[in-house]
Structure formats: C-alpha cells, structure tokens
C-alpha cells in the first residue's frame, strides 16, 4: 500500500456521517423448521449453541440495528459463519427475515410486492459475489449489460453502457470473450462492471475480493476506492479480513455469532475496542498504517504552539508522520484540517497509540 492509496483513502474518510440510505431495525433470522418458536427462545436470551442443541434451530441473526449512510462504504466484518452473507441478503430480500424491518429510503422493503421487489433489485440495488457468479454462456459484454437487459432496455444502449463500465474498471477489448477465458481478478472486474452498469445507487458486495490473490486484491480495493471517489454509491461491503475492512470502511460493523459486537468509525473501534473479542481481532493490525492524526491528536486550545516542527494533515496516517519525524520522538506537530489548525500531536502520544490495549480500561480515547 503506497502513498497514493493513502491519498485516495483520505478523500473518502473525510465524509461526515451521511443521512441513512438503508436502515436495518431489530432484525432477527432463525433458520429451521419453527422460526417463531426459535425467535421466542432467542428473545428470552437463549444463545446460538443452545438454540441448536436444544431446539434444532440455527440462529442466523440476532437483534441487528445498522444505519448505512448514503454515499458511504459500510463494511460488515466477522469470521466465517458469523452471519455476514445472511445479513447482506436481507437487504434485497434474497433471504426473508424472521422479524424486523429493512428500510430503503425510509420505505420498508418487507411491504414490497413481488413486482416492486424485482424493481428494487433491477435498479436500486446491485450485487457483487464472492464467486463472481457470471453467466458462463454469455460474453463479458453481455454479462456486464445483464441488469439493463433484464429491465428490457434497448440493446444499443445496453452495449454502450456496458462497454463504458468495462473500460472504467480496466477491461478494454475483452467484451467478446467468455468469462472462463479471464483470470479471477478480471472476472471480478466484470462482476463490478455488471453492478455499475445497473446504475443502482446501492451496491452490495459479499466477500467480493476474498477469492482473489493478495496482490490482485489490493488492486481491486484501490479500484473500488477510486470508483467510489466519483460515484458516491452506498456500498455494503462484506469481508472477513480486518485489514481490508479498515482500508475501505467509513462505517464498520463487527458481527459475531449473528449479533453485532461493535460498530462505528473504524479508527474509533481500533482505539476503543468494546470487547475482548475485538481486542483480539485488532491486536494483529499494523496500527501505524491505519490510525490517523485526527484520532490521536490533542484538540487545539488557544493558539497553535510555536515550537512545533511543522504541520500534518488531520487525515495523515501515523506511519507517514513517523517517516516525517525521522524517528525523533521529541518532535511535535500542528494538525490541520483544510489548512486550519485543529490540534496538536506529539510523538510520545503517537507512539502510545501504536501499542494495542490489552485489557479493557476506560478513558482510552485521550491517550
């Protein structure tokens, strides 16, 4: 991850918390023969293991409440089996909830008729899949135009739009090939082009990059961030990889056994893990690369100190500040936002922030 990536991240993470585009309220999902009974048990406090052992029902999701901001990337992270795929499939009702509401632009998706639901899927929400799920008997161009073709648009318009987005994701001149002739990374680019061609404001991505090699994966993450800079889609992104989550998330939701353990701004979660489970998770992270000046600085009181060694942007990573200081821990900087001083940062505080917290204590925010 080089400096230019950091630059792309900056512009995204400055987005203030946006109005909610998608809201999930009190969502429960029980898989099994008698979900109503299972729901009652779960509401009475029975946990996932006991529900399975004693009642033969699988707890998919428990009491999920999330607001997904318009134009933001909401990342849902959790280990395998934690219910990520189940959750994202509730948004376009590929899976029906046992209880709860899913509001898109304030309207409960559960109230939709079959036709309205299809309309939602055709033009409001697109989806990118872990295993690409392209149509093997259709060319790349036809695959990219799938959503518009389903809607019944003109063939010329479809192909023009599909070709445009294929270009945009870096796939020039492969329109007439078939998916199996492309590498995994290229196939997923087709998957992204397909989602973008649908021109839907919401994009669901279920472990979209998990099947790819690490290098290709980084490329794809950068591609996504770069596209997002212009497109401002409401993206729901699923991953089991914390590095990936921290790199692209505006809002991070951590799932475990079907319930949310913590959600919030990624920096916040990193500095204030609410739970030993999350402390474990964030323990292995390269914090210097993820944490930013604004999360570690002292808010400015009065005039900026005169003895500072210079200015840093509030979105600079600690890694870049360390590089700038040349390792001298006596240095201090003025943190600016849009060139207006907003805080101060000294290297001692910065170094403290790099040490993961081992036990939960309070007040960790103001190191």
């Amino acid at each position, binding site marked *: 991850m080089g400096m230019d990536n950091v630059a792309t991240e900056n512009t995204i993470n400055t987005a203030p918390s946006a109005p909610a585009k998608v809201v999930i309220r009190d969502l429960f999902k029980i898989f099994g023969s008698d979900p109503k009974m299972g729901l009652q048990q779960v509401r009475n406090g029975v946990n996932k293991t006991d529900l399975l052992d004693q009642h033969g029902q699988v707890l998919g999701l428990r009491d999920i409440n999330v607001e997904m901001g318009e134009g933001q990337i909401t990342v849902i992270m959790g280990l395998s089996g934690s219910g990520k795929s189940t959750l994202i499939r509730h948004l376009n009702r*590929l899976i029906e909830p046992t209880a709860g509401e899913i509001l898109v632009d304030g309207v409960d998706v559960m109230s939709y008729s079959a036709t309205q639901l299809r309309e939602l899927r*055709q033009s409001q929400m697109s989806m990118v899949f872990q295993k690409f799920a392209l149509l093997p008997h259709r060319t790349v161009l036809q695959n990219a135009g799938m959503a518009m073709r389903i809607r019944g648009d003109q063939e010329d318009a479809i192909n023009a739009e599909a070709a445009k987005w294929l270009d945009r994701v870096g796939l020039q001149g492969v329109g007439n090939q078939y998916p199996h002739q492309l590498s995994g990374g290229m196939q997923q680019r087709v998957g992204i082009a397909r989602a973008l061609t649908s021109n839907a404001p919401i994009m669901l991505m279920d472990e979209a990059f998990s099947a790819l090699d690490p290098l290709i994966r980084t490329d794809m993450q950068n591609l996504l961030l770069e596209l997002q800079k212009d497109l401002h889609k409401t993206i729901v992104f699923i991953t089991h990889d914390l590095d990936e989550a921290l790199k692209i998330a505006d809002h991070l939701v951590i799932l475990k056994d079907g319930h949310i353990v913590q959600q919030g701004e990624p920096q916040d979660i990193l500095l204030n893990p609410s739970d030993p489970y999350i402390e474990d998770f964030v323990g292995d992270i390269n914090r210097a690369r993820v944490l930013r000046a604004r999360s570690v600085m002292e808010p400015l009181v009065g005039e900026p100190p005169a003895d500072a060694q210079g200015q840093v942007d509030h979105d600079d990573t600690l890694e870049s500040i360390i590089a700038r200081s040349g390792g001298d821990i006596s240095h201090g900087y003025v943190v600016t936002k849009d060139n207006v001083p907003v805080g101060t940062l000294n290297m001692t505080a910065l170094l403290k922030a790099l040490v993961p917290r081992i036990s939960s204590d309070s007040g960790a925010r103001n190191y």
Partner: protein
Amino acid sequence: MAAYDWFFDTVGLREWCNASKSEGTMSMADLLAKAKGGASETSWWEVPFPSLDTLNKSCDSVMRTRDFTASIEQAFLGVKDNLKVVLDPITQPLSWMLDGALALFVGTPWWLLIALILMLTYYASRNVLVTIFVAFSFFLLAFIDHYTYAVQTLSIIFVCTILSVLFGVPLGIAMSKSNTFQRFTIPILDMLQTLPSFVYLIPLIFLFSVTESKLYGIAIIMYAIVPVVRLTDLGIRLVDKDVIEAADAFGMTSRQKLFGVEIPLALPNIMAGVNQTIMMALAMVVIASLVSAPGLGTLVLRGIRNLELGVGLVSGFAIVLLAVVLDRVSKASLARINAAQSH
C-alpha cells in the same frame, strides 16, 4: 370336503358362501376331483396355499383366478370405449406424423436424403470423421439393400424423438421446479423404464387398432421419453446456485431465469438425455415391429419366424450400424455444446 371349509364355518361366512351356490363352468381340476368323488381329509402336510382357486372350492362366493383376470379384462373393456373417445382424437395427429414422415423419408430419392442427412450430421457435430462414418454406413446399408428398411426405422425414430423432447423437456422442467411433482413423477418414470416393453404393448393393442401407426408411436414415446425427462430435471437442479442467486439478485423474472440461465446451463445434460432417448427409441422400434412398425425390425422378425438365419443376422447388423450412427452423431453434437460451454 375342501381344505378351507373349516375357515368359512368358524368365521361364520357359510351362508354368504352358499348364497351364490351355482353350477357354473367347472375347471378341469374340479371335474377330475368330482370324478374321483373323494371327500378325503387333507393331511397338514399337503395343506394347499389359500389361493383364490383353493378357497373357491370351499366357498363359491370367492372368485376363481380366471374369473379375476376375466373381470379385469371386462373392466378394461368397459372403460375402453370411453377412453377411446378421448384418446383417439388426441393421438390421431401422431398417426399422421408417423405416416407422413414415413412417406416423406421413403419418397425422397436416396441421393437427396443421404445428402441431407450428411449435411445435418455435419451441421450438428462439426466433425468430419463422424460425417464420413455416417456416409460410409448409409452406402453400406444401401449396398446390401437395407436402405429402405433403415430409412423407415429412421423416420419413426425421428418423429418419436422430436415428440419425446417436446413433451419431456417441459415435464422435466416442471419436475425440477416442484419437489412434490417430482416425488409423484419419479415412480411413474421408474415403471415406464423397468416394465418389459412387451407389457405395455398389451393394453395399447386393446386401446388402438394394430393397423394404426400411433399404436407403436405411443409405445416408443412412453419408453423413450424417460431419459430426457430425468436429465432435464437433473440438469436444471444442478445449475450453479451462485449463478441462480445472481439472476435473482438482479431481479430476473422466473421466465427470464428459465430461458436465460437455467435451460442454457442445463443444455449439456438435456442433450445427454436426448442421446439416450434416441437410443431407446431405436431399441423400441425394433420390438414394435411386433405391432406392425415397419423398418429393420420386420426383417429381424422374419428371421425369427421363418428361421431365416441370414436375414436375421444381416438385419441385426444393420440395426447395430444404425445405432452406432445415431449415437456418434448425437454424442458429437453433445461434445460440441459442452466445448462451447466449458467453464
């Protein structure tokens, strides 16, 4: 005194038995027994199985087995006329198609028909070797004067395969969409496939006249339709769940999904079913010569009936050749579809 008198006496059915005491026709065995006049006690060692005939000796109200078969026949004949009223008009087009195809195939000059067949072979298989093999086979068949018979057989297979696909594919699709329908259909398919072919010729002979070509047409279709139904069902059920999910996620209607995703992706399996259907139609068309289906089967039948060993063996060889031709051509087309879809 018959073996099971005691049973009807103890259960108190004696009166019921005597109620229908009649001197109907007696079987030979009855007559013999009567002649012996033996009212002998049977020892436990020789106690007969309580079959219908045995029980009848003790109780006249129990029907004998031949009465039983006769009553089945009566029942069948009873509904036959009604069935005919419905089935005859429905199946009439089958006779027309079979007769029409037969006239067309036989009426076409040999050089034209062979040329057409070769073109079709090449178009379907895109395989020069297979095309050459087909050409060689047809010239060989024509050379030993089996051309007309072979073409008759071919015309029947042609019609029956098309109809099997026409009915079988939708049936298979319906099965793949509904587990209930599948549960209900599979036993019927099992039965059609396991019943010896002769067995379902019997009711058909009663239902239709042996002179009508639809008789053998129905027999062949009932037998040959099974694989294409099964493999369509299987093929659609095996379509990649992820791709189906993508189709749903982008809001396809079930119709768009069926024609745009499921059938194209199930095509290799469906074509494998068509291949088997063709082979089974060939097997059945030979047997159907018993009920006046024309073609190579009649020669085999002549060989058996008149003990003409040479005729039987040569026509048997012709059937094998035709089978290999049909199999190669349909397999080569299948391979082409698979290659186009490899992923």
